[in-house]
């Protein structure tokens, strides 16, 4: 339990939860959906609590917490990718016209959840959580330029996905 570096004063872990838990949850629900988001959220809290005393600085605790959450998204994408059953011919899906109209937002969110993890986190951080690029970069663990690139690529991909959907 001894502090690693005497100059570091970390606030009670509860403070991080009080300040950021709702946003972390929102981030994860947006990234992987409500059900898996709940699992990823709990994993994030536990991993963060485990690593917390070893932190060398308390400069950007929000960013640190989201970095852990982003890693859960990456793990999740890997798991889902592994479990996905490859199909040669995707089965015909009959979609009622109602369903197509049903919810454009739901379709958009579903498309966000199909993005590669870095693009997904970048897009969600930038737009759904309204964070500046510097923070997006800190969470994804890349340069600010790369963060912009990830957001741009993510948006383009979303545009293509939604365009195919409409014409399908």
């Amino acid at each position, binding site marked *: 339990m001894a502090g690693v570096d005497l100059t570091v004063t970390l606030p*009670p*872990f509860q403070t991080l939860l009080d300040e950021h*838990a709702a946003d972390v949850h929102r981030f994860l629900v947006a990234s992987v959906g409500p059900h898996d988001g709940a699992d990823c959220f709990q994993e994030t809290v536990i991993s963060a609590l485990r690593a*917390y005393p070893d932190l060398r600085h308390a400069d950007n605790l929000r960013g640190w917490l989201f970095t852990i959450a982003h890693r859960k998204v990456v793990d999740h994408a890997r798991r889902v990718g592994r479990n996905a059953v490859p199909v040669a011919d995707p089965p015909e899906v009959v979609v009622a016209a109602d369903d197509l109209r049903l919810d454009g937002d739901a379709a958009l969110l579903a498309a966000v959840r199909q993005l590669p993890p870095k693009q997904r986190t970048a897009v969600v951080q930038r737009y759904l959580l309204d964070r500046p690029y510097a923070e997006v970069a800190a969470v994804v663990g890349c340069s600010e330029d790369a963060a912009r690139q990830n957001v741009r690529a993510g948006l383009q991909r979303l545009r293509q996905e939604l365009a195919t959907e409409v014409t399908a």
Partner: protein
Amino acid sequence: MTTTDDIAARLAGLATDPADEGPDIVADLVGQALTRADADGLVDVAWAVEDTPIGPLTLAATASGVVKIAFGTDESALDELAATVSPRLVRLPRRLDGLRRELDEYFAGRRHDFDVGLDRRLSHGYRLAVLEELSQIPFGETVTYKDLAQRTGHPKASRAVGTAMATNPIPIVVPCHRVLRTGGALGGYGGGLDTKAWLLRHEGALLS
């Protein structure tokens, strides 16, 4: 033709959608996560707030026992615990259930002695010796600062005894309210003199 700007605007519009978020959902998930973390031994300090007849008390415990009782809902007490004990400090009332039950019984007049384990790591040296001696003073009795100095083998250390009382990390359970000035004046108390008088009256050690 949809542009990436349109997509961005739609995403930004979703940001303010409150539909997917309830604070209760998050609180429940945090609670579940902390319960799991606690089972893995990751919660070094658990705290809870308990309402009592003398006002709310902030209670904190480590795996070894009760480490801190603070009057009120003082956040700075928690900051201090994070710095001195461990930053792995979270609200986990279940870990304080034993103490909360004993406090309830004490305030209801059904309990005179506390049985919960104590973690005295915040006290050292002579202050620790004084506080350990203080734990021998039973419900309903009082001693003077000078008595305690004598009982700990330092008859001239009344002032040091006073400091030990003032810095008692676990008031009520470690009964510094039972220490009075020679002559019967109340002396001081971290929770305020009204609280000290209330506790002494509650124990029948102070009339009126």
